[in-house]
């Protein structure tokens, strides 16, 4: 499949699921006459229509001229694995932030991320993961007065 066909297919799938759910919304006229159903139906139809058009338009191109889309899962294995690890790290960061506090979690997060991206430059990695949380904590929590969770370090006076 070509880039356009995949894009079209994605739009068709998302559009039809969205449209189906829009049609399930209860009909109500509280507040205004046309209610909360009409607009989603319109948008879902646009996505469905544009996606279908995009997909079908590619069928007109002779088969041998179509350029199949390469996901590059093999060639760019490194890139994809880095993306997956970043996503896992990011979500883990978000859910531990409030327990362990900003400074500690951010240090661990930055240490993992620099290891992932910067490789085994341990001195650079350590410096970044120590300095980033401390500097940002000083700037945002102390100078700008925003609230950041202190977690396990809440015994400290600042």
């Amino acid at each position: 499949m070509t880039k356009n066909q995949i894009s079209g297919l994605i739009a068709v799938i998302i559009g039809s699921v969205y449209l189906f759910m829009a049609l399930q919304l209860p009909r109500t006229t509280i507040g205004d006459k046309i209610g909360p159903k009409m607009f989603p139906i319109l948008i879902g139809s646009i996505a469905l229509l544009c996606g279908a058009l995009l997909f079908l338009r590619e069928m007109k191109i002779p088969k041998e001229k179509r350029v199949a889309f390469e996901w590059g899962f093999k060639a760019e294995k490194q890139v994809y694995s880095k993306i997956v690890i970043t996503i896992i790290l990011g979500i883990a960061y978000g859910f531990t932030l409030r327990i362990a506090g900003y400074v500690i979690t951010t240090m661990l997060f930055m240490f993992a991320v620099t290891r992932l991206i910067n490789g085994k430059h341990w001195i650079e990695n350590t410096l970044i993961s120590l300095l980033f949380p401390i500097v940002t904590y000083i700037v945002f929590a102390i100078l700008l007065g925003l609230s950041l969770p202190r977690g396990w370090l809440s015994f400290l006076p600042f």
Partner: protein
Amino acid sequence: METVLQNLALGMNEALTVVNITWVFIGGLLGTIIGMLPGLGPATGVAILIPISYGMNPTTALITMAAIYYGAMFGGSRASIMINTPGDASAIVSCFDGYPMTKNGEAGKALAISAIASFIGGIIGMIFLIFLALPVANAALKFGPAEMFSLMLFALTATVTLSQGSMLKGFIAMSLGFMLSTIGIDPLSGMMRYTFVPDLQEGIDFLVAMIGLYAVAEVFKNYKNIEAHFNVDAKSIGKVWVPWEDFKKTIMPIIRSSPLGFLIGVLPGMGGTIATFVSYALEKTLSKRPEKFGKGAIEGLAAPEAANNASSCGALVPLLTLGIPGSGTTAVMLGALMMLGVRPGPILFQMHPEIAWGVIASMLLGNILLVLINLPLAVPLVQLLRVPQRLMLPLILGMAFMGTYFLNYSSFDFILVTIFGLAGYLFSKLEIPIPPLVLALILGGTTEQAFRNAMTISGNNLLFFVQKPISAVLLFLALLSIIFSIYKERKYARQAQQG
């Protein structure tokens, strides 16, 4: 004229406080650095710097955001000139003659003229903005729901059709943005729509979406060339100055390009990239020595630089007066402001003229400060280009996640921001444009409400939108841009078949 001066005085009064001047300086400097770093565009820059505006009062926040924005425009061309790698799309044209100048040993001259042309372009753009802002805002005050709906539809359609890439994909991106905007509690009926989990009841915070789509996705894209690093030879830059005989050649190009850039900037979806390309093409046509273009012609660098900064002033016209962003960067700015409770638009000029005029006045000051930063500090600043990607990317990620947390102090947002990061990465692989999605997401709520209000007023009569003259004109323009786009795509397709 008199009211303009009065307003400007009011703005100056508001802008010229120690705090605000400090932030203009800091914002401009950060913007310059961010605009300069390759692969880090102004939208990403504004997105990751959003947290610094928290806790500021609205005027200071808007002033700082604007400073980052035009700072990035100043900085964008540094990397084009020194290492032939544009910081963002609007700096591509600056490579054409900027990099050849560096190769000819004129790096200092190139850096100087780019700062000076940016400055003049910015000032001319500012003057247009000052005179245009109030009339546009006043006209927009008379807009009812029908006009507002048609205006937003026009802005979105123009963003889809005027920006590069396939129109159908643009409309797909737009409808995805609208879909995301309907998630949450419907404000008119109180009904829950598309809330799969309780965390979505409040809807998706568009700043989370933008940090994901721009900053996180940008990092993902750069995972491909982590080892990239550039060598900048500081000794060969020479004196950062333009001799008078060279400057003379650039005066007319700058004066022509600035109003042109401004006009293009006002239109939604056009922005800096198109402004720079058009002004370059125009100067090449008008030049007495077109053969020099591309080989280090100083006017070939000055013209797009002036056009780019003037267009960034132009882009602020719809943003400030109508509350409609025309590009990814201005959309991020709008998001950040709405978060602080400021809603740009015609009402802003009526209710809070000091905010609106304060930011305009601060930009005059900011442009002067930036040319002062960029001339003497050009050499130390370009050294930053040496920072390798493998050190930059972790810092961008750190800022992006920290910024996400500050938005709502919600762990759930971390899931969203990574999903948006992945989506942004896939979109760029499939060449689906991001700006229409972002604009639809941010304008979706108001568009739907305007549509429903207009329908209620007219008693469910769709013809209502064509019966109102202004609304009809806007819808006609939207239709025209679609027809133009279809024509353009057909022509390209035919050329591709022949060639």
